[in-house]
């Protein structure tokens, strides 16, 4: 079924405070990723690819760069007369003392928007999960199973974030939900992608509000494990939760080690804001290997095992290894980078040598000059 009867909600500020280096200037949804994207492009494009025509983007703080990126939603074909994309700034109930501190508060703030929608189902997704999923199959599976709530999960080491749910399953039925389980072993952990009926979400959130609950995972999901049919949908595709600068770096390196083929699929294109750069130019003497390189780059030096975003300049004699270099950064003559994450517009002056470790990448903040 094309998902025209589904309202998409993306939590664009998911875990902002945990990826603090990069989110000091932006919401987690607008963290640049994969050479030309922002994290939010992945769930947003997947929603569009499966036929969803109405998407609400929930924000918390620092969302100016996110708004700049999303604009009217045109690149995702979501600039519509009816429906389309709506940016939902925090909605602070009077006297509440701050908005959207938890997922439940965020949902409470969205209830107005959600109840106005005429869709039957809701798909919730977090912007800090890098995946390119066929939501159509997930929604179909949910409807066919008769489950009350479907939650996508992955098997592996749980991301180091608060309120991540881990599950015990009997077949596809979730029999036990733990929140903040303190165990480093591999688990079935939630990717925070949920499908449920709109009416059920409204009922659950209203009940939680009435009971003075504060926590979505504990008070809404875990508390209902015996009264509702909670269904787990196992995701075997590329799906990584970004929980820190370190995982951001690791997931980026995974891409150049072949992961790009799993993430970038012809039938599930990822859309993003167009920048009108010329194609990348390689100069005489340029050397590049095992790298993802976006339009607008000019490469005269050496690039290995790296991701270069749009408009990056690598001068003669410069060497970029095992690094992520964001938009419009400039690496001058004979400078060397290894295991570094350069945010946007960074200038590395000539003959500099910067190196992090593969377990602890060096991060250079936006607009800095080294």
């Amino acid at each position: 079924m094309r998902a025209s009867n589904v309202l998409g909600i993306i939590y664009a500020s998911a875990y902002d405070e945990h990826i603090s280096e990069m989110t000091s200037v932006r919401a987690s949804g607008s963290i640049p990723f994969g050479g030309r994207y922002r994290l939010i492009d992945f769930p947003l494009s997947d929603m569009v690819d499966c036929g969803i025509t109405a998407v609400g983007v929930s924000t918390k703080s620092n969302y100016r760069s996110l708004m700049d990126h999303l604009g009217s939603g045109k690149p995702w074909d979501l600039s519509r007369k009816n429906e389309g994309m709506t940016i939902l700034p925090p909605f602070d109930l009077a006297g509440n003392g701050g908005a959207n501190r938890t997922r439940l508060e965020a949902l409470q703030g969205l209830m107005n928007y959600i109840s106005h929608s005429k869709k039957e189902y809701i798909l919730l997704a977090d912007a800090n999960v890098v995946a390119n999923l066929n939501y159509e199959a997930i929604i179909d599976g949910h409807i066919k199973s008769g489950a009350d709530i479907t939650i996508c999960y992955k098997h592996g080491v749980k991301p180091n974030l608060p309120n991540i749910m881990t599950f015990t399953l009997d077949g596809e039925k979730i029999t036990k939900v733990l929140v903040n389980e303190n165990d480093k072993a591999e688990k079935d952990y939630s990717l925070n992608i949920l499908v449920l009926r709109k009416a059920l979400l409204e009922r659950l959130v209203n009940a939680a509000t009435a009971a003075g609950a504060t926590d979505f995972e504990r008070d809404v999901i875990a508390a209902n494990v015996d009264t509702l049919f909670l269904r787990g949908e196992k995701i075997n595709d590329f799906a990584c939760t970004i929980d820190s600068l370190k995982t951001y770096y690791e997931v980026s390196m995974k891409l150049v080690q072949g992961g790009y083929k799993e993430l970038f699929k012809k039938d599930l294109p990822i859309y993003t804001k167009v920048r009108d750069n010329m194609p990348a130019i390689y100069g005489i003497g340029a050397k590049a290997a095992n790298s993802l390189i976006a339009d607008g780059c000019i490469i005269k030096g050496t690039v290995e095992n790296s991701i270069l975003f749009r408009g990056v300049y690598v001068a003669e004699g410069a060497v970029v290894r095992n690094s992520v270099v964001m938009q419009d950064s400039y690496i001058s003559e004979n400078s060397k980078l290894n295991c570094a994450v350069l945010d946007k517009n960074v200038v590395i002056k000539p003959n500099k040598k910067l190196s992090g470790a593969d377990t602890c990448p060096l991060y250079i903040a936006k607009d800095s000059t080294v």
Partner: protein
Amino acid sequence: MKKTECLAMLLAGGQGSRLGILTKHIAKPAVPYGGKYRIIDFPLSNCINSGIDTVGVLTQYQPLELNDYIGNGEAWDLDRRDGGVHVLSPYQQIKGTDWYKGTANAIYQNINFIDRYNPEYVAVLSGDHIYKMDYAKMLAYHKEKDAACTIAMLEVPWEEASRFGLMFVNNDGSISEFEEKPKKPRSNKASMGVYIFTWKKLRQYLIDDENNPNSGNDFGHDVIPAMHAAGERLFAYQFDGYWKDVGTIDSLWEANLDLLNPRVDLDLSDSAWKIYSKSAVAPPHFISDKAAVENSMISEGCDISGTVDYSVLFSNVTVEEGATVRYSIVMPCTTVKAGAVVEYAIIAENTVIETGAHVGNSPEEMKDHLEDWGIAVVGENITIGKNAAVCAKQMVDTDVKGEA
């Protein structure tokens, strides 16, 4: 509604027959160029960058792809409530149906379109050329000279002058004489096919031209000479910069490789004069550890494991391990398989060059009979079979069988 001072009419109906199979299904302005552009992106981007936001695009030959490409003009920021881009095709009228008989007739048939905006000036542009030009400066010159018509002019090398419409220019910039593609040129000041007219004047000359049964209804041949003969103020506006007519296979190939030549004055990375286009939806390109890429332009979505040297690759091109692409232009979604060689060639979209196939030859290889050398061209949606060969200068638009 705000006043439209200058409106542009873009002539995009040409077939570009010398481009052979590359323009079998598309008009010349829609021919891909420079890794992600089409030729028409240049005049359209020049318009928006020059502050002209009302543009009529005159189409006639194979308009489908061009219409589709232009769409509502959004890619060039030309989707406007007032003005914007309009595709103007020939249409049926009460007295019958006329194709556009010539460049001047094409504008004549759209006088009602121009009158809707009632501009003071009309720029008539060709959709066939690669150049970056500020029409606003030319318009200022036109106003300063109080001209009826200003023609953009470029000094070309003397040995090439006989291919162009030439002008003789007085010290004050006024034009004293025209010469159309003379065998023995006496001037090297060539017309670039870029005109600015004072609309009131042009409107009358177009009507007179239409009423003249002996006219070929062409700007260069008929309308401008008529204006000249009537003593109108005609001025030449000198342009210094890169300008190329990509009318032939050789010039299309050259113009693409010009982008890789640091001595050529055509910088597409200049953020102050962006060339806009409809971008493909594709991830960044991937260069594997088996690849060797030098002196080339590579677009998004490409997957490169072979050798690429002095070439322009459009989006989603695959070059497999052990394959070589040099001195070539490869258009979107084409695959060059392992061990294949593509050199001195233009390969159109969605084509497959199978393992071990060889397309094109280098001029050095053929130095004993250089007259037979030329760029090899492979058309869209075809397959060059395993170990098959396509020779220099050959143009192929059907599958070439290879070894089983």
